């Protein structure tokens, strides 16, 4: 039996990483993390040792359990997946008692993704996580599948500034703001987040999309629209990272969108990212994040100038 990931080495033994990175001063073993919404420890732990990743970004947590959207939540697009989960999660208290201690017990670097329907929701979750062993926080102001909060905040620079300013007063933990590509100019919310106290930016979240069933003439997904992710969005993510890097030199950036190989991760690093997150690839290949990390580790051997910059917390451009 040959698995896709085993072609690139043994995922069952601890790997000595050659190339690390730093995101807002936080050291990562390597520049590859999971993307929020595609990682549940209880499901992924059967496939590989997740503590080997640069970081794991856990699913968005809200103050109380959320049930998410009813009905059909997914459709397929060309080289892509469309999801409309709606941030179903068991709530921050469960996260603090269950997922987080389990991940810290195996020495994983953990980015806790924070969701909310309103500013008070975000503030409540951040206050609870501030007193936790989470290594970094990622503020989700970019989910396209919730009726309030999420993308409605991330597309409005005034609302975004108000939220991030408030959260900054609550926590000293390194705070990443995850941005949506569903705007005319992504550098506008990027600048609003940084000027309000964000330590880093992650981009992009999913693109708004849908499919229609031509037998019925109706949308495939019950929620009508969802978020598009997968290899199809790679060029969109790269352009977003490039533009934000150009507009905001020095701000740490985590590049996300369509990464399913070391080569594609490398493109993001050359665009100016400090690190990357692998999302949809894990939905069709559970070990994809670790495979990407291994491939990138080898690719950086022949690029010492880039590897040195990343290890020092700097970026290519």
């Amino acid at each position, binding site marked *: 039996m040959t*698995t*896709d990931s085993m072609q690139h080495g043994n995922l069952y033994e601890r790997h*000595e990483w050659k190339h690390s990175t730093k995101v807002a001063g936080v050291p990562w073993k390597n520049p590859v993390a999971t993307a929020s919404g595609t990682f549940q420890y209880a499901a992924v732990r059967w*496939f590989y040792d997740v503590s080997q990743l640069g970081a794991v970004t856990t699913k968005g947590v809200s103050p109380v359990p959320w049930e998410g959207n*009813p009905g059909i939540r*997914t459709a397929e697009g060309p080289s892509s997946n469309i999801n409309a989960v709606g941030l*179903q999660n068991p709530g921050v208290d469960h996260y603090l008692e269950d997922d987080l201690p389990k991940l810290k017990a195996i020495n994983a670097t953990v980015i806790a993704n924070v969701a909310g329907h309103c500013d008070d929701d975000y503030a409540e979750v951040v206050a609870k996580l501030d007193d936790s062993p989470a290594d970094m926080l990622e503020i989700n102001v970019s989910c396209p599948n919730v009726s309030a909060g999420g993308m409605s905040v991330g597309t409005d620079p005034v609302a975004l500034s108000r939220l991030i300013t408030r959260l900054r007063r609550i926590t000293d933990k390194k705070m990443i703001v995850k941005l949506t590509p569903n705007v005319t100019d992504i550098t506008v919310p990027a600048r609003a987040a940084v000027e309000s106290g964000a330590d880093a930016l992650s981009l992009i979240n999913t693109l708004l999309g849908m499919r229609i069933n031509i037998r019925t003439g109706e949308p495939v997904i019950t929620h009508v629209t969802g978020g598009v992710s997968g290899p199809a969005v790679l060029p969109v993510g790269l352009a977003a990272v490039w533009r934000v890097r150009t507009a905001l030199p020095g701000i740490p950036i985590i590049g996300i969108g369509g990464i399913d190989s070391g080569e594609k991760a490398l493109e993001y690093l050359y665009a100016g990212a400090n690190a990357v997150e692998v999302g*949809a690839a894990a939905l069709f290949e559970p070990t994809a994040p670790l495979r990407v990390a291994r491939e990138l580790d080898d690719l950086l051997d022949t690029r010492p100038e880039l590897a040195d910059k990343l290890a020092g917390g700097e970026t290519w451009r």
Partner: protein
Amino acid sequence: MTTATFTPTVAEATQAGFFPSRHTVEIVDNRKLTDGVYRLTFRDEYIAGHARPAQFVDVYSNDPTRLMPRPFGVAEVNGDEVSLMFAVVGKGTAEFARLQAGDTVRVMGPLGNSFNTKEPANYVLVAGGLGVPPLVRAAQAIAGTPGATSTAVFGYRNVHFGDEYVGRYADSVYSIDESEGNVITLLDRISDELMNGELKPAILSCGPLPMMKAVAAWAAKHGIECQLSLEQRMGCGYGTCVLCTVDTLDGRLKVCSDGPVFTRERLGWGE
């Protein structure tokens, strides 16, 4: 520089407590059972050695623009060969219908929970259409369980494509198609026999949603235990993406990893 030299065997991976991710297998047979319905057989030691009734396998397209896996319930296991049955419903399944012996395809599994077939009972296997495959596998497992028997009750649109396969393992087979009625027609016809048999009856069911709800109601009316294997449009198949949910009395659960099997009581059906 790390070199890629170590490939764990199935036994080593299992012993290490890890699950084999997506991997490549060889097709040994693919045959048309009726218009648009196929029985695909591939060789895989791990899945053959582990697949329990109602567990499913994710099959991945060889077309790089179609990324999401298609989940199919395991229909039969023979030695190291695994058989699936599926209907062509779109471009992905049309591609699988064209696979031939010697071709390769990527798979992952077995996934999900399974029917409990360990009790001494007469398992009544109630299936409709493409709900048939997991119940063929259930009949196969029950045939190896001392003190248990099985009675297949299958409903089809027209061609009775699963009878030959379930007939290899089930103690009795009843089937019907839309020209005569449905599985409830059959259950009513044999209910005296089931209720008065030596072993207590227990229903295992898979099929279209309205059929399964009717089966759950029939089970409730007769006071019979009922396990239902659900279908839902899925993403990853292994519990990470939360795309395939069902509303239960325990909240909104994942069909792929909390299921696909749920009891009638847990679903709150047939009350």
